[in-house]
């Protein structure tokens, strides 16, 4: 079996998430990679160990990863592959289902575990349950959750690169512009790091003391329901069942006791840090790293430690 992996790139390098997808694909068979972008990107893909061949899309429509030509390209290449895989992300979610439709295949998104060549585990209901599904399609189209697969190394391989082009089709869409998020605070549901405050922040004024830490980490700021109810911050800060479900790489809970609503809203975070003066606070039961102490003393120490570490 040979698997085609769609790789995503940024600033000339293959994204780490895509290298995780390579790991997932290697569990299924030999791996070919499809990249868009310039020769440098294709070269970067070729250096990932385990990739046997790199297909480089060269047509103009691929430049901005527009779904219509890219999906048509993937579908046109699909013939020789048993699986088509990509890391879950905006590009793959835009392109792969469309390609799957062209192939008359039901895609399997957000795979967290590969059971066998046709059986996969994926979260449903925002992670409240894990479904194991078996596909009866001849080909499988899947996206994988990068955090569940270790990324393949970036260097060490030497695959051949071959140019491919999408089949001719009328252009129904055009790229207009892209606006990268500025350095200002990221949105809660897309932030890589979240610093969240709870009742322990005591008041609206003190809640602002989270900002220097969030600035240093490029983090979004969230809040527990209790902090919202107490009026420290507006309700769009709320993380939790009735607010938002978040799953950043790093979640720092400051002065949050860990009410179940809050835990339900952030328990899928990759790494959870809890800072609380009450060693019995439920938040410590889910935290990877717990620091018991007065948050008003800990916060400046953390900032200092981050500055020192550079």
């Amino acid at each position: 079996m040979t698997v085609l992996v769609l790789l995503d790139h940024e600033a000339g390098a293959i994204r780490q998430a895509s290298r995780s997808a390579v790991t997932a694909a290697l569990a299924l068979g030999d791996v070919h990679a499809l990249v868009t972008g310039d020769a440098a990107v294709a070269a970067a893909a070729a250096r990932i160990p385990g990739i046997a061949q790199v297909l480089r899309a060269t047509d103009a429509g691929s430049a901005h990863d527009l779904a219509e030509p890219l999906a048509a390209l993937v579908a046109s290449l699909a013939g020789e592959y048993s699986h088509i895989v990509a890391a879950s992300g905006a590009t793959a979610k835009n392109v792969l289902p469309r390609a799957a439709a062209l192939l008359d295949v039901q895609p399997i998104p957000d795979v967290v575990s590969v059971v066998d060549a046709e059986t996969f585990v994926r979260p449903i209901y925002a992670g409240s349950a894990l479904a194991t599904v078996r596909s009866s399609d001849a080909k499988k189209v899947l996206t994988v959750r990068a955090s569940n697969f270790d990324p393949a190394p970036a260097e060490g391989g030497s695959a051949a690169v071959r140019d491919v082009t999408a089949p001719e089709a009328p252009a129904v869409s055009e790229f207009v512009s892209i606006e990268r998020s500025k350095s200002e605070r990221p949105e809660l549901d897309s932030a890589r790091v979240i610093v969240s405050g709870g009742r322990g922040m005591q008041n609206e004024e003190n809640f602002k003391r989270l900002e220097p830490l969030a600035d240093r980490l490029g983090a979004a700021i969230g809040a527990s329901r209790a902090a919202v109810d107490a009026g420290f911050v507006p309700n769009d800060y709320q993380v939790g069942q009735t607010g938002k479900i978040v799953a950043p790489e790093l979640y720092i809970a400051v002065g949050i006791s860990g009410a179940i609503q809050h835990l339900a809203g952030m328990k899928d975070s990759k790494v959870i840090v809890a800072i609380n003066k009450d060693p019995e606070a439920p938040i410590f039961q889910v935290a990877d790293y717990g620091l018991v102490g007065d948050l008003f003393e800990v916060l400046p120490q953390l900032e200092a430690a981050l500055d020192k570490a550079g």
Partner: protein
Amino acid sequence: MKVLVPVKRVIDFNIKPRVKADGTGVETAGVKMSMNPFDEIAVEEAVRLKEKGIATEIVAVSIGVQQAQDTLRTALAMGADRAILVLTDVAVEPLGVAKVLKALVAKESPDLVILGKQAIDDDMNATGQMLAGLLGWAQGTFASKVEIADGRAVVTREIDGGLETVSLALPAIVTADLRLNEPRYASLPNIMKARKKPMETVAPGDLGVDVTPRLTIVSVAEPPARKAGVKVESAADLVARLRNEAKVI
């Protein structure tokens, strides 16, 4: 122009789903169901297009059991003009839904299909893209802004780390993301009026579509509980561990 808005009946977003003891799925009996929140946003966007004089008719569609009528009634109360229920007891996958919608598009000839980016039950995030693929139409997924002018839809999309704007030839598919708008309430007077709006029922077979699922659910389980980690002694220790051990900063 005519807008088609597919909506799905799902377990209400306030309800924490409960995995059945026998692992065959999630308990839905007696559980409150509502319109998929992303679909509500799609309905709202369609209604705003109509209020702006751009859309002339909004047709809401749902594929599912008889009670999906309630979901359609909500769409009608929010401002859709009429509704079509594609009645089936099968849990239809996005591929099957896209095929049903393709058949309805052939019948209704809308200029725009707008739907939620994903349903909060199966979290597939696929139907809009698949329908676009089957129709060969342009797609603007994860939309946070939609402008219709000169036969095109200019869609601002939420992508990793920013916003991308694309211009789509109509007819096109748009899938709604959270920030597109804040849906209105279905007010009581409008719910009352919605009872009188037309609702048509068809079967997938009437449309010549086979909706047999391609995926078999082997089992459904609760995710493993998270375990407590370590207590660190100082802020410096914490930073060092986040850097060297967890590698997240």
